[in-house]
């Protein structure tokens, strides 16, 4: 691959990302605002009202304990939602054809959509973080870990959104992954509790859940407390990203759902 090709791909990548960012920014009332409101409600109800009665979790105020988890929850759902609705929308309105006729490798298309999703995940993550400041002081134990974990998490769920978008034939199909996979995994992923509370068997089951490691590692970056070694969490998430990217690439190369 020559340098001029690389330059072209870089331009194409930037074009897709900026288009994706403009897309959700234009409709920020539908994309950025709702998760901020939802999370604020979580803070008030779970953190404030109920949390007072729960007392401490792993030595932290309950509110302080759930803040990292809720930020991650917002990052996960929004990276996912951005890519799945944008990709499905581009199939539905057929403007995916603009990409299909042009000389962009599928890997660049994937990266473009994924970083569009990452941008929304980060935007919402930061907004939720700002809201959390009203309820809980921001603790930063290791900002590097926090940032890398948020990035990796949003990359992973943006990829999941892309894969769901490839298979989706109707608007209802967009909800498949959130309903049957994302929501259960996040609620069982230690956002609201430490898995040390669970019976041993369910602790074992929980360890198959990738979201557990994301929340745990992010909580480490923020509070300095984690149930698992950080290196292990990084490795597991990286493994999931590699697998999901591979699946996405194969699907696009085969033209599943986009080429007859």
């Amino acid at each position, binding site marked *: 691959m020559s340098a001029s090709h690389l330059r072209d*791909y870089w331009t194409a990548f930037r074009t*897709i990302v900026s288009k994706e960012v403009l897309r959700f920014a234009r409709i920020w009332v539908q994309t950025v605002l709702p998760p901020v409101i939802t999370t604020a409600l979580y803070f008030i109800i779970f953190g404030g009202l109920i949390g007072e009665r729960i007392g401490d979790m792993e030595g932290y105020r309950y509110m302080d304990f759930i803040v990292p988890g809720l930020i991650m929850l917002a990052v996960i759902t929004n990276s996912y939602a951005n890519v799945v609705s944008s990709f499905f929308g581009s199939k539905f309105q057929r403007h995916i054809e603009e990409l299909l*006729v042009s*000389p962009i490798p599928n890997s660049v298309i994937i990266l473009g959509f994924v970083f569009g999703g990452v941008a929304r995940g980060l935007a919402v993550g930061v907004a939720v973080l700002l809201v959390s400041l009203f309820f809980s002081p921001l603790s930063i134990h290791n900002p590097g870990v926090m940032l890398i974990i948020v990035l990796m998490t949003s990359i992973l769920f943006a990829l999941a959104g892309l894969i769901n978008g490839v298979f989706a034939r109707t608007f209802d199909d967009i909800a498949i992954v959130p309903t049957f996979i994302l929501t259960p995994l996040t609620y069982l992923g230690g956002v609201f509790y430490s898995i040390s509370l669970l019976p041993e068997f369910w602790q074992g089951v929980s360890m198959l859940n990738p979201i557990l490691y994301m929340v745990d590692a992010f909580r480490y970056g923020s509070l300095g407390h984690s149930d698992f070694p950080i290196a292990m969490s990084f490795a597991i998430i990286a493994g999931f990203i590699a697998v999901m990217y591979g699946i996405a690439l194969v699907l696009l190369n085969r033209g599943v759902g986009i*080429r007859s």
Partner: protein
Amino acid sequence: MTPALEIRGLKKTYKNGFEALKGIDLEVAPGSFFALLGPNGAGKSTTIGIITSLINKTAGTVKVFGHDLDTDLQAVKRSIGLVPQEFNFNNFEPIGEIVVNQAGYYGIPRREAWERCEHYLKELGLWEKRKDMARTLSGGMKRRLMIARALVHEPRLLILDEPTAGVDIELRRSMWDFLTRINTDGRSIILTTHYLEEAETLCRNIAIIDDGAIIENTTMKQLLAKLETETMVLDLSEPPPGIPEDSPIALRQVDEMTLEADIRSGQHLNDLFRVLDQAGIRVQSMRNKANRLEELFIRMTRPGQSPSHLTPGAGGTSEQPENQA
């Protein structure tokens, strides 16, 4: 010279088992203005979809300026600009951005992309609307937007799938001028249309596809020369004194003030005038009963049916689409 497009043995069977292309061969010379005609469902869009990598082929080879679709896809894609049959842009994107983003996909940096966008949107009369959402455009404007988008990476081959469908007469003519101009500048053009007058006006070369097979591939001149008889409609200024029985040109009376004359190939209009003069018939005006190409087209794609059955009262203007057939 390397052909702009070279198709060999192209087949397409859709997933539902329908064989849309049954092994077509097609060659388009560089610089030509080429018409791909055929009735609804003939396989035109399928062929175009395969060339532009929107549809996977089942068998055969496609080469664009010598680049093979299977081994040199990037070069093929860079050589082609596509104006598809159906609108395929984001309705909620401003049209300037649609064109500029398309340039970006080809690696054209933002600033240069805006310069080209300005050039083509101005050419097509849309620059004032660059900040408007695509969905606010009229149908004809949307077609022009897709033309600008197809040209922004300066492709050597422009493929237009029914670009003038739903475009008013005035605009259609200005689109014809525009296309003729970019063809003269050296760009090869392939166009499908159901307005056969359009093909006759614009295109020097022509292929007719029917039922997934090419049934004709020649120059417009040679094709029209094949027309054995041409029917003229004569509007009279007064009722005819009588209809000559055994004249070399067959005359029929349609109503009191209208005659039809069948002119076979080899006969001239002068022969007709002579017959009319001798019979003392005074003619006010005269027109082709159907567009000549239209007549041929219907004979070729619907053997056994005469054109008059299919285009009742069709005038020579052929402004109405053929697809009622």
